[in-house]
């Protein structure tokens, strides 16, 4: 067993949008912006924001795949997780850690939003995907679709 059951993990259940509302379109087409690329999100008026690709781990368990993504600064309220047409998209908005009047005197990382998309194979049971968010890490469980039993076909000779 490589994976603990969910009941032993803390973390907030993330709702997964199956049919995203078009009015809340994520800032992506089929080509998400590159690291540090600026975009103007409609939610923010003309404010320029950065967007980053979050690092992920994917590992296999008996029941399917588990994906972990680092989304520091993202909370349940600012996370969008959507499944649409075999595409799983995560988008997390991040607020600056310091008040606007703060002077940034030493900078090793830039603050921005997180965006990443994946194509799901048919072997993933879309209806049973579930996700939790804990301490800025998103954990998505992608269960294998249950296979039907192979059926024996009698071959009869004439």
């Amino acid at each position, binding site marked *: 067993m490589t994976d603990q059951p969910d009941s032993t993990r803390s973390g907030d259940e993330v709702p997964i949008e199956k049919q995203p509302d078009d009015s809340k379109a994520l800032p992506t087409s089929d080509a998400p912006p590159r690291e540090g690329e600026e975009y103007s999100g409609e939610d923010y008026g003309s404010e320029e924001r950065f967007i980053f690709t979050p690092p992920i781990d994917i590992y296999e368990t008996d029941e399917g795949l588990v994906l972990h993504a680092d989304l520091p600064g993202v909370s349940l309220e600012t996370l969008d997780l959507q499944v649409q047409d075999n595409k799983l998209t995560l988008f997390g908005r991040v607020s600056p850690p310091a008040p606007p009047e703060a002077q*940034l005197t030493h900078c090793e990382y830039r603050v921005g939003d997180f965006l990443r998309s994946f194509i799901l194979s048919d072997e993933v049971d879309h209806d049973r995907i579930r996700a939790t968010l804990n301490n*800025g890490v998103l954990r998505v469980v992608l269960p294998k679709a249950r296979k039907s039993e192979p059926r024996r076909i009698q071959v009869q000779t004439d």
Partner: protein
Amino acid sequence: MPIFRWGQAWGGAFRDLEREVDRLLQGVNLTFEGVRFGRQYPPLNLYELPDEYLLTAELPGTRSEDLELTVAGGILTLKGRRDELKDVPEEKFRRSERFHGNWQRSVTIPDRVRDEEMTAEFNDGILKVHLPKGEETSPRQIPVVESHDS
């Protein structure tokens, strides 16, 4: 020493999942362009406000009990670890881009900080350390005495 695990090569039942929509389609040659990676861990920012300095770090997935902050001799040391996937066998990984392991960083505290009043908060994987400013110490005049060496 941080440990980076490299996922197994492509293949297996879920191969399609790994076909990401973005530039990772470029194949097996996974570079970390685009992934925040390969620099000192964790990256730190320092902000200055009228009455305090604010040190921030991104530490997603670190539990607060695995975080240790100590101050001594004007140096603030941050220590911690993240190893929640240590029980997953290496061959089970398809992708491994996240930092795992122990880390430590030390920063020199600005002079006029009141060490004893420092506080820290940790939410959504973001650590904020508040360093309250003390009184501006006025420079002390050191009298220069003429020496009468002959």
